[in-house]
Every structure is written in structure tokens, then in C-alpha cells.
């Protein structure tokens, strides 16, 4: 995202004068784009730090898939760079799950499991609707199916591994559970059966967790004060620090490119 603003502005102006006004962007592009962008950045933080080289590469590849989806979605809304780098925290519409810090590897895998299953089910349904987002969903569902497979394999391996890995995987699942309720709040502009999505998500997650000899967490999946407000622009404390790191270069050097 290092396009120079001057170039972009010029290009946009030319396009605007040459063609009729573009239709309003699909309302769901921003929340879905923010989900992908924010999780992409979190996964990118693993680069150089993953437990093994293969995982370094895998997490970076998953991050790249998500970044590609984010670019397409945010470009439907406006200038992708401005949206990514110049918005304040309250303007982001991602769910709080994706902004949660990486924690240890098991914690990241728990976040991946919860989110990739959601994304696969959601894109799969969206691809079969009549929506401007359907072509992207049809493309992305194939990518996130691999993300889900990756998360499931690691959940099985960690849960059914050593006592230490089992305990860490369970801790990750428990800690992130309360952020999962927000995934099934209807997103404006997405005409999906959210209750059916939630039921299928729960069935899928439960099967994997139980196969991994782990326990499906109990307790609320959202609460009045806590999780569930990311779509309205309310975020958890670590998100501000993440944005500061993600945005500082662009804000410090406006228009820089290479």
C-alpha cells in the first residue's frame, strides 16, 4: 500500500470526470475488508518469530491471502491506502476477534480456527448470492478453505500433543471464546442466514475441538461491556497500539513510495 497519494488523486479525478458516478459501494465491503486487513497485519507480526520456518512461511502466506482480499474489498469503498493508513481506530469496522494480540502460537491457532471457519462458511454463502461481493467471495472461499485446514490440523496436533501443548491450546480457545459471538451479528448488506451460519460454525468447531481431546469453552460468547462492538467501531485496547505500528510509516512519510 505505498501508492503515492498524488498519483492516486490524479487517477481518481480523471476516472471521475470520464465516467458516470460510480454506484454506492456495497455496505459490507468495509467490515469484511477490515476483518481481512487487521488479521493480515496480526499474522504478519509472526514473520521471523514462528516456532518453525514452515510456519513462518505458512502464516505469511495466509496473511498475504487476507491482504489480497482486503485490497479488493477496500478498493470497492475508496482509496485502499487512505482507508488502511489514515483512518482512526473508531472508523474501523472489524470484529474484535481479529484484532486480538497473537499471544503464543496456540493462541494464534485458536484465533485462526474460530475465524477461518467463520470466513469459509460466510464466503461460501456469499458466493452463492447475487451481490457485488459474490465474485470475490467465490475466489476467497477457496483460499480460506486452506486456512481452515491449516488451523484444524494444528488444533489437532496441539490438543492431542503433549500436556504442555494441550494446556496452551485449551487456554487459547478459552481466552478467545468471548469474542466469537460477534461473528454472527448480521452485517448490513449481507443477506445471509446468520442463525444457520452460527449453527454450522458451532458444529464444525465442536467436532474439531473434541477430536483434539479439548473442551469446547463455556460461558457467554459476548457480553454487554465486552466483545461484540467492533462492527460499531468500538475496539479493544491492543488495537490502538496495533494501528499505531501499522500506520506510523505512512503517516510519518506521507506520499512516500519505492
Amino acid at each position: 500500500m505505498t501508492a503515492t497519494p498524488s498519483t492516486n488523486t490524479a487517477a481518481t479525478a480523471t476516472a471521475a470526470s470520464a465516467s458516470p458516478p460510480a454506484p454506492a459501494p456495497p455496505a459490507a465491503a468495509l467490515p469484511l475488508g477490515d476483518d481481512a486487513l487487521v488479521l493480515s497485519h496480526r499474522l504478519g507480526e509472526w514473520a521471523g518469530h514462528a516456532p518453525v520456518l514452515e510456519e513462518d512461511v505458512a502464516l505469511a502466506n495466509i496473511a498475504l491471502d487476507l491482504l489480497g482480499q482486503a485490497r479488493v474489498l477496500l478498493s470497492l469503498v475508496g482509496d485502499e491506502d487512505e482507508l488502511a493508513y489514515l483512518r482512526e481506530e473508531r472508523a474501523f469496522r472489524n470484529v474484535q476477534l481479529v484484532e486480538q494480540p497473537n499471544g503464543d502460537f496456540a493462541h494464534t491457532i485458536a484465533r485462526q480456527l474460530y475465524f477461518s471457519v467463520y470466513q469459509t462458511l460466510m464466503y461460501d454463502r456469499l458466493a452463492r448470492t447475487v451481490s457485488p461481493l459474490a465474485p470475490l467471495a467465490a475466489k476467497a472461499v477457496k483460499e480460506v478453505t486452506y486456512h481452515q485446514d491449516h488451523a484444524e490440523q494444528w488444533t489437532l496436533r496441539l490438543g492431542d500433543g503433549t500436556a504442555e501443548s494441550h494446556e496452551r491450546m485449551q487456554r487459547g480457545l478459552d481466552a478467545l471464546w468471548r469474542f466469537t459471538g460477534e461473528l454472527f451479528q448480521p452485517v448490513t448488506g449481507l443477506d445471509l442466514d446468520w442463525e444457520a451460519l452460527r449453527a454450522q460454525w458451532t458444529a464444525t468447531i465442536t467436532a474439531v475441538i473434541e477430536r483434539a481431546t479439548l473442551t469446547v469453552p463455556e460461558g457467554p460468547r459476548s457480553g454487554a461491556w465486552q466483545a461484540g462492538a467492533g462492527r460499531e467501531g468500538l475496539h479493544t485496547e491492543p488495537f490502538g497500539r496495533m494501528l499505531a505500528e501499522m500506520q506510523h510509516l505512512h503517516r510519518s512519510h506521507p506520499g512516500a513510495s519505492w
Partner: protein
Amino acid sequence: MVTTPSRASATSTTPPAPSASHTPAAPTPSPGTAAPTALEAELCALAGSVPDPELPVLTLGELGVLRAVHVSGTGHVDVELTPTYTGCPAIEAMSADIEQVLREHGRDDVTVRTVLSPAWSTDDISAEGRRKLAEFGIAPPRPHAADGPVPLSLTVRCPHCGSTDTELLSRFSSTACKALRRCVDCREPFDHFKEL
């Protein structure tokens, strides 16, 4: 999201069309338009001859990412390119290379557009492309008719010794489109072009 000014002016990601079901791949014009003219076919062959930036043994035509070339009445050339993966960083290099090749053949007014629908599939790789991949040491993707990835438990043949006794090391390899495997017989690691 690296976009140099020159590329930004020539490459645009258009909002995907709402109607998702088109005829698949192959450098043919979109449904509803006339058959390609001789000029369009020629330019399509030129653009299709550009090597893939990450897998230079393959051409873009063999990879199946070149969707169409249209020439307008004013001589403007419009090229439709589809990414293998949504986030594939090679798409910008592909666009620049296509523009360069067409420019070398006297076509200065070129726009390369990225289209997402219908989604690219590894089934769009030509038979010749698959042969070249294997020759290059990359196990080609297995054909699959249904949507979604083929279960990874199916056998992938070692491109070095031909053994079917191979194992998965990592689902993600040097690029998003490849998985890393190892041959149990000859012990060589190799990339496998994942089914998509």
C-alpha cells in the same frame, strides 16, 4: 500494496461484475461480445507468451490467467488478467510485462485490468503447462471437477523420481499457490502446485 505510479496509471482493479457465472478461463472474449478479431488473437498470443514472473517456465497463457484482449475502435487495447490468488503479488509484474511486450509491438495505449470472476482454478493450467511444471521439479496440481481443494491425503507423485510415496511437509511453501512435500523414496523435497 506496492503500486508504483506507472503501474497505478495502467493497472486498475475493477469492481467485479455481479453476475458470477461465465464460461471459464481460456483467452476468449467475455460472453456477449463478438469473437476475437485476427488482431485481438494476435495480441492475445503475444500477451500470453509472457513468462510468469515467479514460475518462468510457464507462460501466462499456459497458466490460464489471461482472460481476454479487446481492441477498441480507437486502437485502445484492454487486457483482462485474473490472479491465481487474490493477494498474488505477481499480478503487478505480470501487468507491467504484458504492457511492455505489447508496447514493443507498437501498442502504446494498453490497459491491463484485473478481473476476479470467474475465479481462477488450477484446472485452467494447460496440459503443456502441467508438463513443464513437472519437468521443472514442481508436482502439477491434480485436476478436480468439484469446487474446493482436493483432500490432501490423495497421492502426489514425486517430480524427481516418480514415486507416489510422498508426504506433506507444509501446506504453504515459497508462494501461496504451492505446498511443500518430500519424497519418501528419493528423499528430495519438492513443491506441489496446490489444487485451487
